[in-house]
Structures are given as structure tokens and as C-alpha cells.
């Protein structure tokens, strides 16, 4: 039997969270090694695990994969969550490049000085609503289907749910003008593997806190 994938990262969301979502939804059990000190991080580098001296690192199928988007595409394809042909894959890539960018903005806002953070998060929430949720609401309205692409559950749906939940943590009413996204959120949340991942005790990570931010800064020295 193939060994489980191993995820190397800080004990928090960051760039690894989308990978955790994708694996969990695909029903793939995985292990995690948490980086807590700079020494651990440097050791990974010295041992040649990190092609570009960066994490996330995922050990899977005999490979040491880095670069979040490379890892995500691999997993989406492997677990049949990437559309049925090149055009559907193209749409999924267009949608997920957007959601990943948005989630990165959220993640980075926690690294702003405390006095700027709230303002920054407000800006990101506004951007989420005007540039992203508006667009995805329209996509769902135009085709009237349950899922974003090809009338079939895909990685794009997982990403959209992930970012909706993230934005709602800062703004619980973020979906108030988006009825189709509200229905989408309920529908996707009820998919069994997702429902399970949303329960306490899963490998889903909480929002960044001061300890997480401090750990990241210590490990990466910035």
C-alpha cells in the first residue's frame, strides 16, 4: 500500500491550507510535520528537500514537491477534480488562480503591523466582494448549475468554499448580496468529506494568531 503523503509546514494555514483542503476532500489521509524552529527549516534545506529553499513541501508518490500551485494542480489532476478536458481545466485554473490570489492577500494581512491590520483586512473584504464574489455569483447565475465548471464537482468549488469561509471569518455578512453563493456554500459544505473536514478534530487549521505570525517570522527571519 502506498505511504501517506507527508506535509511539511508551520502549524497554521498559510499556503499549505489549500493543499490540506484538497487532500481532505479527495479522501486522502495525510501526515504532517510541523516546523517550529529555524533549525528545522534549515535542516530541510541542507538535506536537499527544498528545491527553492521554500515550503510548502509535500512528499508524495516518491517525489518531494514544492511550489504550492504545482502541488495543487498535481493533486487536482490525480484525484479527478480538474475537469474532463483542457477547456474545463483552463476554466478551473482561471477561477483558482483568482481565489488563491485572494487567499494570499488575506494571509499577508496578518503580517502587517497591528495598527494597519484591520484596515488591510477591510480592503481585502471589499475586494473579495466586488472583484471575486460578484464574478462567481454571475458564473453560477449564467449556467444555473450546482458547480462552477462542467456541471460536476471540481477543485474550483473547493477553492471557492475555502475563500468564502475565510472572508466570512472577518465579515460574517459578506455573502448577504449573493444568494447563489449562499446556496453554493450550503451545498458544498454538505458534501461528506467537506462536512467531515469542517468538524473540530480535523486537520483544518484555525485563522492565524500572534503565535503563528511570530513563528513564521522567526523561521524565515523577516
Amino acid at each position: 500500500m502506498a505511504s501517506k503523503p507527508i506535509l511539511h509546514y508551520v502549524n497554521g494555514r498559510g499556503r499549505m491550507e489549500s493543499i490540506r483542503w484538497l487532500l481532505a476532500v479527495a479522501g486522502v489521509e495525510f501526515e504532517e510535520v510541523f516546523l517550529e524552529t529555524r533549525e528545522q527549516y534549515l535542516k530541510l534545506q541542507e538535506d536537499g528537500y527544498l528545491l527553492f529553499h521554500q515550503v510548502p513541501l509535500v512528499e508524495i508518490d516518491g517525489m518531494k514537491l514544492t511550489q504550492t500551485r504545482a502541488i495543487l494542480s498535481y493533486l487536482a489532476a490525480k484525484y479527478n477534480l480538474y475537469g474532463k478536458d483542457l477547456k474545463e481545466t483552463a476554466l478551473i485554473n482561471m477561477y483558482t488562480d483568482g481565489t488563491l490570489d485572494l487567499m494570499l492577500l488575506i494571509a499577508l494581512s496578518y503580517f502587517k503591523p497591528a495598527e494597519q491590520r484591520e484596515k488591510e483586512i477591510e480592503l481585502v473584504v471589499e475586494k473579495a466582494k466586488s472583484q471575486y464574489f460578484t464574478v462567481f455569483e454571475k458564473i453560477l447565475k449564467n449556467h444555473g448549475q450546482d458547480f462552477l465548471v462542467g456541471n460536476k464537482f471540481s477543485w474550483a468549488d473547493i477553492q471557492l468554499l475555502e475563500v468564502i469561509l475565510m472572508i466570512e471569518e472577518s465579515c460574517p455578512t459578506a455573502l448577504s448580496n449573493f444568494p447563489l453563493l449562499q446556496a453554493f456554500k450550503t451545498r458544498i459544505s454538505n458534501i461528506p468529506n467537506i462536512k467531515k473536514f469542517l468538524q473540530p478534530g480535523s486537520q483544518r487549521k484555525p485563522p492565524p494568531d500572534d503565535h503563528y505570525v511570530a513563528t513564521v517570522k522567526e523561521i524565515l527571519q523577516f
Partner: protein
Amino acid sequence: MAAKPKLYYFDGRGRMESVRWLLAAAGVEYEEQLFETAEEFENLIKGGKLMYQRVPMVEIDGMKMVETRAILRYIAAKYNLYGKDLKEQVLIDMYVEGMRDLYDIIMFLPLSFPEEKENLRYILEKATDRFLPVYEKVLKDHGKNYLVGNQLSWADIHLFELILMIEECKSDVLLTFPKLQEFKVRVSKLPRIQKFLQPGSQRKPPMDAAGLEVAKNIFKFSKGMFLKHGTTIIAEL
């Protein structure tokens, strides 16, 4: 016969240049609609053609594609430049993603503040210490002509493009990378690449002061974008 792809961008390299390279390497003819003013760009947005109100946008095979990475992946897959299986594909993705940080800071160099004299030195240091050694080692370890699967792929095209960009910063940057020197010569001799390197091709020149003004007027850049992007080079976290 299918319509040619059509590229929507301003008249400069930016993020569209990688698309131009890949289409050229694939031997695909394309058209360009290059806007020069903020008004033209805003009309494009108002016309509803840009999913996230941003360019690059490429009309191809009935789609209005945005997001450079999505566009490049589609072209690579369509024209057999994305490996023969999923494991080769992920290697190509990893190599291309790994180039992105360096690509971005070179791309944004013209937006540096005048007092940021360290930026060029920073770029060259990252190039020679972090990025180029990775690809030199890949080529050395397997001894093949191309990065992945002994066959030309998107990763090779992108690396070639990046090498030329770094050389525009410092012409002898490949001095200590013999495999990359051979690689560069090999790729530059491919007929479609040779053609793209000739004057008169759709390849765009480096950004000059006039081009920068045009870009700033259209996209409302702020200076200091270099530093913001410079932070991504420290860690992908």
C-alpha cells in the same frame, strides 16, 4: 480554419511576454490588440471581457482567458509542451513556478525608487545564488538536453526567456554555469526560437522610460512595487 489567438495587453513585455514566447515556440500565429491609454484599458473592462478586470487576456478557442498561469498551462497542454504524464507535468510546474519570483522582480525593476540602488544587485545575487544553480544541477544530474523528460517543454522555453532577461541585467551571468550555457545555445538554435529572436517578430523590447510612463498611466502603478514583490523571494509562505 480556427481563428488565431488574440492577445490583449499594452505594447510591452510585462506578463504577456511569456505567452508570446510559448505561442512562438509552439509555432502558433497570433494577433495582438495593444492598448496605449487608460481609456482604452477601461473600455476593455467596461466591455466585460476581463474576468477580474485585469490583463493579460487571450481570446483562444472561443474562450476569453485571463490569469497568465492558466493561459500558459492551456497553451502548453494543447501544443504538447507539458510533459507526457502527470509526473512530468508537476516537474514542469515546479520549475516554472520556481522561476516566477525571479521573473517578477526583474519585471518590476523599472518601478524601483531612485534611492533603491541595491535592487539590481539583489536580483543578480538571487539569480546566481538561488535560481540558476537549481537548473544547472537539474541538467547536470540527468545529462539530458532539456529540463524534463528529454523533450522540449514549457519549462525550457520559460527558462530560456528568463536567462535572456537576466543577461540583459548582466551579460556574463552564465559564466559559472556551463550546462546552462550549452542549454541556452541549444534552445536558441531551434528554428521557431531563432525566428522569434529575429527583428520583426512579435517579441517586445525591454521597458524604457517612455514605455514605463505609458504603463504607469494605464495601470496606475505605484513605485515601490519592487519591494513588495521582493518579499516573496524570501519565502513562499
